[in-house]
């Protein structure tokens, strides 16, 4: 062992040497590969926009902005409007965020703030992350066969006793906003939990120690120090979870009832953009393709905007913790 450096070192006594031609080539091709991968991603996005936009353009000219503000889908008279879909997409995602978000952040606190020993926390984390691996259609079936029968009595009771509140103004028949929202909450839970866990872990130990050093209880430390410090990351996790909820298709197409209406009621059937696309596209005639592509563009824009905002917030808070 002692004589190995001697045998490697060149005669002039230096251990360094210029890279070989192979190493240069290797480096260069790796660089080229990463650049190519990056550009392909961007090119793909542009291509998708361009292609769908191209097919949507005639419908955009024909229906204009009225398309976004009317509730109508009649292939026989060629009248289309997607206000109900836009409303349903945003409303279901917002409700899912309300429930899934709170739950996700709570799970993240539970798993990072020393409530469990490391091994148990690891198992819990694994289980939460496994939720993300369940296919959407399985969630949909679970919703139809397990969830809806289970929540029907509760929904019925809420409608009977609190029916004067707009949220409970109709009775839950089966598919509707409420079951869709619950399933959607479960689906965004892993996203929210994973990203907020990272935010909590990024808090320097010193800050927590300082809080405890000042004599706070655990609850006080979490509420007044840790959550505010991680707030940027938590917010980003919520925005990304929202983005995930917006684009969810199969489970919603199976559970939301696909009825074009704009209502606050949680127990009424509604519809979403993704579910409209999924259920109408396979048998759409030529006259429906344009409006469907237009709806696809609207969904794409909404989802992208939400994701971009989330990423910006995340970057912004990441910079803040460094300085």
């Amino acid at each position, binding site marked *: 062992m002692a004589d190995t450096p001697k045998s490697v070192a060149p005669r002039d006594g230096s251990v360094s040497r210029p890279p070989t031609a192979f190493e240069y080539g290797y480096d260069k091709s790796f660089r080229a590969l990463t650049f190519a991968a990056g550009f392909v991603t961007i090119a793909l996005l542009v291509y998708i926009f361009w292609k769908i936009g191209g097919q949507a353009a005639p419908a955009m000219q024909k229906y204009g902005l009225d398309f976004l503000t009317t509730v109508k889908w009649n292939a026989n008279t060629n009248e289309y409007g997607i206000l109900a879909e836009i409303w349903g997409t945003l409303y279901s995602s917002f409700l899912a965020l309300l429930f899934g978000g709170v739950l996700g952040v709570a799970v993240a606190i539970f798993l990072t703030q020393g409530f469990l020993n490391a091994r148990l926390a690891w198992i819990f984390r694994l289980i939460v992350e496994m939720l993300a691996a369940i296919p959407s259609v399985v969630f949909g079936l679970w919703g139809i066969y397990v969830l809806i029968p289970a929540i029907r009595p509760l929904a019925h009771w809420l409608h009977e006793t609190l029916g004067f509140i707009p949220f409970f103004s109709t009775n839950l028949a089966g598919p509707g906003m409420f079951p869709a929202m619950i399933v959607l909450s479960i689906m965004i839970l892993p996203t929210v939990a994973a990203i907020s866990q990272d935010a909590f872990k990024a808090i320097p130990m010193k800050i927590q120690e300082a809080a405890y050093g000042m004599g706070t209880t655990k609850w006080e430390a979490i509420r007044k120090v840790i959550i505010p410090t991680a707030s940027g990351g938590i917010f980003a996790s919520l925005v990304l979870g929202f983005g995930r909820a917006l684009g969810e298709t199969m489970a919603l197409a199976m559970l939301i009832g696909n009825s074009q209406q704009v209502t606050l009621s949680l127990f009424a059937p509604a519809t979403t953009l993704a579910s409209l696309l999924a259920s109408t596209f396979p048998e*759409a005639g030529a006259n429906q393709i344009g409006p469907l592509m237009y709806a696809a563009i609207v969904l794409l824009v909404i989802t992208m905007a939400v994701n971009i905002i989330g990423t910006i917030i995340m970057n912004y808070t990441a910079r803040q913790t460094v300085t």
Partner: protein
Amino acid sequence: MKIGNFSKGAKVVAIAAAMVVTGTVAQAQSVNLTGSGASFPFPLYSAWFKDFGQKTGIQVNYQAKGSGGGIEDFTNGVVDFAASDAAMSEEELAKIEGGVVMLPMTAGEIVLAYNLDGVSELKLPRDVYPKIFLGEITKWNDAEIAAANEGVELPDETITVVVRSDSSGTNFNFTNHLSAISSDFESKVGGGKTVPWPNASNFVAAPGNQGITATIKQTPGAIGYIEYGYAQQTNTPYAMLENQAGNFVKAGPEAGSAALASAELDENNVAFIVDPAGDDSYPIATFTWMMFYKDAGQDAAKVDALKQMIEYGLTTGQTMADKLGYIPLPENVVETDKKSMEEIGG
């Protein structure tokens, strides 16, 4: 082993070469057919094609992507045949150079399946069920339903109407029937593959026959329209409907055949039986079609295989229909089909 395989391969090549040279009838055995379209007759077609493939060696690949998708594929020339529950419109036919041969291959009934605890027999008069699908009757114990069902205890429950969320031939036939018997329905909703159902909170939409069946089974108080075969296979109860003659008829092979008997095919072999006459006719029955190219430039072996397939469907195939929940074609329709199929390939 390798040598064995090689010699086997060589033999196949030799036989193929011999066939090309001599041009024997056996050529048909190496032919594959592709088709796409309607999902409603798929259970029957897949049974046909499996049996047909075993008997003749002709493989038929059929994709049940829906009537609309099938017509699209057919127009683009990527399939050998297509299937549709709504046949093809004049507009669609005009896009196909050389013309189209349309053959009704089987028929089905659309039933109103429901989910009501303890109600095993339900009668729906013809002025009542359009109102349910217009959202005008919303309670099961509505006086108009109760009047037709004396002795049946109907619950004070909201009727959840389950409709199709996707464009479909079933929608087309069902809504055309409703439009035919109710002028109110015609003006407010109308007939078509997708229609603007009333936006009421007791209306939910589900994709496909399976989707509607599952939703009905899971929702107490639900009613929806599905193909007879789906109701039969899943043991879902369905209502007796009042026909044009004023009789309450339950869907089934006899009632279906009676409805088809009144059909008169036009020169394209198309007939929509929106409201069949006859004492025993079930009111909502429909043919479903296969479409073939008339074009003379087709591969002769393929045309021959297609004709064999049609022949099989019209003979052996018809005997399977009943078991799977479809109606066998009336004798006169089979005869028309046999005559028309000669036009395939010029």
